[in-house]
């Protein structure tokens, strides 16, 4: 079946502009995660969605970052007033939550470059 998809695959933007990154999870997966992979810093958790519950935003680095998940499926991560330090690969993962052996499956990522 189809895996997690993300778009765009690459995004170049100017400092100060807003960007939107999209994630389409695996069908039937109720849990969705966003991570960021920065050079030299590894992967870090950003935000978690599960069904209709309030998201866990504890990993968002600043209030310029926000995310939403509409209809329990597609998610959009928005970065406002981008800064150069936002340059990274943004990864989305989904999982079938509620199982004892929950496993996250990743999309190809969006590579963001802020000039």
């Amino acid at each position, binding site marked *: 079946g189809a895996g997690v998809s993300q778009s765009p695959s690459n995004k170049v933007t100017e400092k100060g502009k807003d960007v939107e990154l999209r994630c389409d999870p695996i069908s039937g997966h109720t849990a969705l995660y966003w*991570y960021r992979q920065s050079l030299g810093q590894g992967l870090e958790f950003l935000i978690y969605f599960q069904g209709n519950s309030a998201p866990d935003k504890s990993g968002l680095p600043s209030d310029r970052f926000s995310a939403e998940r509409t209809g329990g499926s597609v998610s959009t991560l928005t970065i406002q007033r981008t800064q150069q330090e936002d340059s990274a690969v943004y990864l989305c993962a989904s999982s079938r939550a509620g199982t004892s*052996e929950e*496993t996250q*499956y990743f999309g190809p990522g969006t590579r963001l470059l802020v000039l």
Partner: protein
Amino acid sequence: AQSVSQHNHHVILSEAASLELGCNYSYGGTVNLFWYVQYPGQHLQLLLKYFSGDPLVKGIKGFEAEFIKSKFSFNLRKPSVQWSDTAEYFCAVNATNAGNNRKLIWGLGTSLAVNP
């Protein structure tokens, strides 16, 4: 706070050599453990995982890992590497008592290059 440490940042091997990549974690509670692999130009893929039971787990492509609870370790092994194993390898953990959010805590990754 949880953390994951991967000891080797860059490893270079010749084909048929044996591989062991170290992974240690810091967390006082029960964890689930994962190894993910990222081949050049591809996205992260699950290599193997440990939730409970037999501490020696086998994954795809001949990889295995052993969970040693007393050492907080989950080292990845392969007896004989191939050129196609050239990739970046990531160790990750999550806590079983973290509620519904099973966010992964990651090591920095190990870049493996296998020379033909």
